[in-house]
């Protein structure tokens, strides 16, 4: 394969249940979490009734009132995160540059809140009385559209959906877009919201932590924990500025990390279900990973483990298999114990990997009480100051799509 240009990360923007940067990073390192009793819709009479809700975020700090008016909340989160990432990168978005700058947003559900409201209106009031103003916001790519409008970006514009790996998929597509020469700069990432429908469906399915763990009266999210009993839903948006390295160097940009590439495949899995450990670490995916610069220097892993019995079991086997002998050297963490599970959360995981590389710090699995004995990985139990030469972001979805992004010291 021909020599590909290098891609670097030059800006980060976050809207999350632990606030924006730098608070998000500080609180994550301190072992905080953003879980709160649900009071913005009716979670039902019995637990679970907890989720992680975005906080310390004022849309009007990032978006003019005239633009805010029509924008749905999910789009507002994505646009805000983009604005912060662009400012962080000190990116020049004058028209000539903006024309060539791309956007890739990943989301599993996007604006489900207004979708449900629109449909309710249709069912209850009939077709003549639905709200035309809301309809354009219901396409999954409304957020990416609003980003383009607000920032004047006319480069490649994509929106991807891949269940719980929508964020990783967006970063991967942005990487390909740059190395294929379609753009020098792409703002990529994603997010999702906690919506009532999604909460209730997962609750009815038994996928959420039920809050009946001995010794507590609340739900509990603890990835890789022996006693983990389900996930807690969260929300947020994270966007990264990805740039062709020469372009970044030429403008004197500060570089967090190099995005060295990614490995991806589909493992056998029934639709709507997490894959089982037997499907973990296919040879082809391990080979793709090994071929990347930095693959033999992975010191830190941000895993998608989310306190589900099934996913965490798969991830433990998957990461051990992908890294083989060097698995024992890497320290593993996850953000889901702090901010919950949502489709675009892999973008937030990628932000964490970039910051881990910058600071030589990996946030701990703060809720971890007893590591699952079946998990052979080195789990980050305390805030660790470590030398991070390369960091892996691992995403695995219900239905079997897997992607591992590799970031390394620039």
């Amino acid at each position, binding site marked *: 394969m021909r020599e590909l240009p290098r891609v670097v990360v030059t800006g980060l923007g976050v809207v999350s249940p632990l606030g924006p940067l730098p608070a998000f990073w500080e609180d994550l390192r301190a072992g905080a979490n953003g879980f709160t009793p649900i009071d913005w819709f009716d979670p039902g009479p019995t637990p679970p009734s907890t989720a992680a809700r975005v906080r310390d975020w004022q849309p009007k700090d990032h978006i003019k009132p005239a633009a805010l*008016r029509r924008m749905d909340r999910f789009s507002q989160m994505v646009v805000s995160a983009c604005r912060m990432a662009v400012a962080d990168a000190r990116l020049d978005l004058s028209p000539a540059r903006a024309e060539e700058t791309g956007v890739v947003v990943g989301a599993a559900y996007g604006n489900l809140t207004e979708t449900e409201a629109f449909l309710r209106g249709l069912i209850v009031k009939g077709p003549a*009385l*639905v709200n035309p103003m809301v309809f354009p916001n219901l396409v999954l790519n409304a957020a990416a559209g609003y980003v383009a409008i607000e920032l004047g970006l006319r480069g490649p514009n994509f929106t991807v959906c891949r269940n719980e790996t929508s964020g990783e998929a967006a970063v991967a597509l942005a990487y390909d877009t740059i190395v294929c020469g379609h753009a020098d700069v792409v703002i990529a990432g994603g997010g999702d919201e906690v919506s009532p429908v999604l909460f209730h469906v997962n609750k009815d399915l038994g996928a959420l932590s039920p809050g009946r763990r001995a010794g507590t009266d609340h739900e509990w999210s603890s990835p890789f924990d022996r006693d983990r009993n389900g996930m807690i839903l969260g929300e947020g948006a994270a966007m990264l500025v990805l740039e062709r390295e020469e372009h970044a160097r030429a403008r004197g940009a500060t570089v967090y990390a190099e995005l060295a590439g990614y490995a991806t495949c589909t493992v056998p899995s029934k639709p709507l279900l997490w894959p089982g450990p037997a499907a973990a670490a296919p040879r082809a995916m391990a080979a793709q990973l090994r071929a990347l610069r930095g693959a033999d220097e992975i010191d830190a892993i941000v895993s998608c483990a989310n306190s589900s019995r099934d996913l965490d079991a798969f991830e433990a086997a998957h990461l051990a298999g992908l890294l083989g002998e060097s698995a024992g050297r890497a320290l593993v963490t996850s953000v889901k114990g702090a901010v919950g599970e949502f489709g675009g959360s892999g973008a937030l995981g990628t932000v964490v990997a970039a910051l881990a590389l910058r600071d030589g710090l990996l946030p701990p699995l703060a809720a971890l009480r007893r590591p699952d004995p079946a998990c052979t990985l080195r789990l980050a139990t305390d805030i660790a100051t470590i030398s991070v030469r390369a960091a892996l972001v691992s995403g695995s979805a219900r239905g079997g799509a897997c992607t591992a992004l590799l970031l390394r010291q620039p």
Partner: protein
Amino acid sequence: MTDPQDLKQRLKELLITGLRLQEVAPAGIADDQPIFVEGLGLDSIDALELVVLIEEHFGIAIPDEEVGKKAFASINALAEFIAAEQSRGA
């Protein structure tokens, strides 16, 4: 028959909540100010939305663009239109 001032107040509130106008209070909308004017940043989709809101809240249909343009000229015009339709139906 609705008091004209009440009706205008109600219409302003409807405009603000229904079209999600930001940082505008009813007192900030003059009775004779054009609704579809530069400053408020409303477009044709907002016009369609307003048609739906009028139908839903007042039970009055706006049959075509001609009628709509006249009725939406200002709060005064909209109030007159609604009052006229209501007395026709009464």
